[in-house]
């Protein structure tokens, strides 16, 4: 037993027993994730308020630009849609931004948290999960902001047509993003260029993932090509269940599942093999 410690001014340290041996692995995991989550959130908020401002402003900006483009198109007789275009944009850009943010933040997760691996219970993978949870948390706040504005402006179809399926789509997309993020993070530890490639390719993905247009509006050959992109399926799924006028006719759930399970298990397998090297890298 440790006695009370006294320092010069007489302040006493209460008896704190650290029962490492009694702590259950799940309890350790939860407290580590919680600590990392709060820490990531604190750094996001404190470091350069412009960063946080941009996180919340970006979707508004994107949607504004694309609505402007559509208004211009309409003037020349195009861009007529049977669904609410504003809702379509919002329900496309928010999940896409989450996907992109998870991927880019996990690329640097190991490097940025290197110092924390000297706490034995912090495993590199925890930093990825914590960062992905922060992105999801920020996404949820953005969604609530949009919903509030939508209700205030009395926009049609503010709430999803099929809420459980949209929810499933989001969660599934999150898992998909984390699995890819894990692969990227492991790759990035040993080949630095992986992170750079990801940041370039995710920007390009914006145009090839049915984020701001429905797949139905494209010619069949283009549809076939875009359907090789797993993200297209996620976007079509979320759009299809969000808006009454759209459906999920192009979505191949087995293809989505394949793209979730293969990267997840490959990432976990590579991670398990390389975990110790990542810690001491």
């Amino acid at each position, binding site marked *: *037993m*440790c*006695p009370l*410690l006294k*320092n*010069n*001014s007489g*302040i006493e*340290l*209460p008896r*704190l*027993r*650290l029962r*490492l*041996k009694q*702590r259950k692995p799940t*309890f*350790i995991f*939860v*407290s*580590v994730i*919680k*600590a990392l989550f*709060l*820490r990531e959130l*604190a*750094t996001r908020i*404190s*470091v350069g308020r412009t960063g946080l401002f941009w996180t919340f402003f970006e979707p508004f900006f994107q949607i504004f630009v694309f609505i402007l483009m559509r208004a211009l198109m309409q003037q020349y007789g195009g861009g007529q849609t049977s669904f609410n275009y504003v809702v379509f944009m919002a329900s496309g850009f928010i999940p896409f931004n989450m996907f992109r943010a998870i991927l880019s933040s996990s690329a640097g997760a190991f490097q940025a948290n290197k*110092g*924390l*691996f*000297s*706490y*034995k*219970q*912090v495993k590199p993978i925890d930093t990825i999960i914590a960062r992905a949870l922060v992105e999801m948390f920020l996404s949820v706040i953005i969604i609530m902001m949009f919903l509030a504005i939508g209700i205030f402006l009395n926009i049609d179809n503010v709430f999803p047509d099929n809420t459980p399926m949209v929810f499933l789509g989001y969660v599934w997309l999150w898992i998909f993003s984390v699995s890819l993020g894990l692969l990227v993070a492991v790759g990035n530890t040993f080949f630095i260029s992986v992170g750079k490639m990801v940041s370039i390719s995710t920007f390009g993905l914006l145009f090839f993932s049915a984020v701001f247009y429905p797949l139905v509006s494209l010619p069949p050959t283009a549809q076939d090509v875009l359907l090789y992109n797993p993200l297209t399926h996620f976007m079509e799924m979320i759009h299809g269940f969000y808006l009454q006028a759209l459906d999920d006719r192009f979505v191949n759930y087995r293809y989505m599942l394949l793209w979730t399970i293969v990267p997840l298990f490959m990432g976990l397998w590579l991670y398990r093999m390389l975990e*110790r090297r990542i*810690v*001491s890298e």
Partner: protein
Amino acid sequence: MIELKNVTKYFRTNNSKKYILRNVNMVLPDVNIGILGRNGMGKSTLMRMLGKIEFPNEGTIISKQSFSWPLGLSGGFVGNMTGRQNVKFVCNLYGKSREETRAVIAYVQEFSELEEYFDMPVKTYSSGMKGRLGFGLSLSFDFDYMLIDETLSVGDARFRTKAKTHLKKKIENCHVILVSHDMKTLREMCQAGLLVHEGELHYFDDIEEGIKRYNEINQEGR
């Protein structure tokens, strides 16, 4: 008790392997151990391996005790968080309750003597201030083993004395693994010595013997 079984550890250099340990088998009793060795022989690596933060290339290290994080100057603090936030973070990591966290914060604030710097980002700290924060933090947790990497030279003379007094009191109830080049500190803190030299590990029940052997090695190297 820490058991090393067929432990081999090396670092890859450009075209060869630099061995820290070569197939070492050893059982270390639960005493205060000072790690000795010349520069670059792997004292810190050995300590980190004992604390299970680094892993051997071959073999295993078995122990049931809890180990502190290695107390060194470059502790695991987050630069853009304040001292207080960092302390809170570590408390969260160890799943402390709110009251316990509050007590730890109060203690660390008092002990580290950081004054208003306690609420400033850690990146504005000097290395001595960082060391004081880390030292106070680790004193407020209970481990079976404290891992210390030359931290006792933190701060000014007055703080060093205070730190030593507190640490001595602390290790009445737990053990310490200490890496230091300062023989006086080693003599004060440790009973046993562990000498790392050219891939071999030598254990000495008496730290004096270890220091003697270490000095001999230093003579040879000259």
